[in-house]
């Protein structure tokens, strides 16, 4: 009860959501942990057409984190709607569907197809996947960000969350454009671009050469970006990046995060969800505080 959170007008049983691309479309997580243990799930990004994903290897461990280059592998919107989405309908958690497109038209097409599915609570626009073969991520350019959010906002009745890239010089500027275009919330950070080299084989480790860095290594970057945005803008934020226990979740909450998203930390630790929620409850109890008391305390 202590963790119940209102976000975009919806009740979340706790401020914990599953980041996009971590648990696919949730079935396995539901079997292992239970979707009713989290406030919401952000589904793996879906595109208009199926995408096989990037060449192998797609993952590599690095100091305090990992690189991935999955490459938005997904079955395409039609199969997603017919085969994957219905499973989520039966579960009482908030459903945020992540979509990506090479153009605004593709995003609009996806948003229209999802608009009439009542049990979808919000859309997340993935404007920041570092692993697809385009010259830049949409959210690396404030004008492109505005254009994409604006185009989707014009056609959807769903709440719209823009997922931003940390691979920028001024994330607040990009965030401001997303908000001006009508984004109801922001999700950040996506992974930081990175490369790992195998000096023994003298080769790149990932099949795609570059990948996205996640894990505790990027947490200070994420905390700063959430802090910078919350100081400047009045917009709800789903914080991502290196949450591996309640303490890392608290870092984000104290700088104003509305929700916190669990990501690659779930791969090694299947108990992470319960550990974070129990840890947060204990912290609040011991400090005689509510979630609202601590949220944004350091702003």
């Amino acid at each position, binding site marked *: 009860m202590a963790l119940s959170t209102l976000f975009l007008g919806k009740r979340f049983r706790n401020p914990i959501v599953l980041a996009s691309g971590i648990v696919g479309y949730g079935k396995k997580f539901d079997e*292992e942990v239970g979707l009713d243990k989290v406030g919401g799930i952000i589904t793996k990004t879906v595109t208009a057409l199926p995408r096989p994903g990037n060449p*192998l290897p797609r993952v*590599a461990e690095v100091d305090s984190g990992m690189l991935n280059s999955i490459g938005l592998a997904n079955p395409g919107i039609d199969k997603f709607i017919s085969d994957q989405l219905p499973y989520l309908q039966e579960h009482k958690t908030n459903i945020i569907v992540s979509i990506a497109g090479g153009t605004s038209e593709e995003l609009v097409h996806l948003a229209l197809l999802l608009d009439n599915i009542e049990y979808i609570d919000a859309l997340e626009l993935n404007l920041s996947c570092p692993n697809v073969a385009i010259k830049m991520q949409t959210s690396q350019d404030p004008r492109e960000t505005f254009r994409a959010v604006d185009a989707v906002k014009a056609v959807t009745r769903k709440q719209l969350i823009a997922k931003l890239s940390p691979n920028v010089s001024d994330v607040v500027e990009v965030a401001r454009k997303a908000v001006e275009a009508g984004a109801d919330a922001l999700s950040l950070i996506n992974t930081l671009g990175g490369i790992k080299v195998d000096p023994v084989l003298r080769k790149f480790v990932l099949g795609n050469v570059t990948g996205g860095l996640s894990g505790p290594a990027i947490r200070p970057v994420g905390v700063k970006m959430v802090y910078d945005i919350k100081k400047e803008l009045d917009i709800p934020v789903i914080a991502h990046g290196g949450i591996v226990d309640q303490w890392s979740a608290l870092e984000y909450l104290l700088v104003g995060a509305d929700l916190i998203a669990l990501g690659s930390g779930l791969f090694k630790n299947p108990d992470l969800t319960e550990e974070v929620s129990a840890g947060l409850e204990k912290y609040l109890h011991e400090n005689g505080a509510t979630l609202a008391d601590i949220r944004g305390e350091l702003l």
Partner: protein
Amino acid sequence: MKKPLIHIGKIAQRTVFTCDRITYILLKIEIQGELKASPGQFIMLETGNDSYLDRPFSILQLRERELSLLIEVKGRGTRKLLSMKKGDSVRFKGIHGNGLGPIENYYGKKIALIAGGMGIVPIFHLVSQFNITGGGQIQLFFGARSRSFFDALDKHLQFSEVLGGFNKYLVPLKETGKTVVDVFREYVEKNGAPNHILSCGPEGMLKSVQEFIMETGISGELILERRMACGRGMCMACPVMILDGEADIIKMACTKGPVFAVGKGRKVIF
């Protein structure tokens, strides 16, 4: 299926050896409780407290309360395992993956087991389970870089003893200039093709084995290796592309494999 159990074990024996400038670790882990695994199945091993990801390792043997792994030192995670000592506690998750079917399925059939290098691991798991008297129809073809690998396995795994009842063809590339598939094909020319092939090893070798399976119309099972982050169907890092008739299918090696049936119009796309 509920959450993967986190098992805690203790290193009962740790042997490090080097062949052809590659370092290997043989780990025998004393486990609590009883675990069952079929050949081809794997565990996700924590390679240290500071490791962000577990590493997948195929099971070499699992009997009584002892889990054995044979590990090639390749990178960051496996290098960390070098510093583990006898008596150290280790954590692992699993048992993961789809292994081979019941051992009885293979009795009485004319089967070729084709292994290359570290591909011997699940094959060793399989043959050490066989009731030797039922294994007369089984031929093992095993290729390695050089004879030193066979010698090392003999010394540390009593390899010859375990394989005593099998017809085996050991093919050291350095000494013979032949690949294991070359020797297998020579065998087939003289003795005819088997009904079924089970194979694990480098992709190039598996590709040649699959070509043979497609040419002759027999059935086969390939055991594939992939890097993976979660080992349980979530991260999408370990896809295997299968061509089944006309249709391309993507399956994750961790949950739908690592054993994949091929033959009769179905093949792995390498």
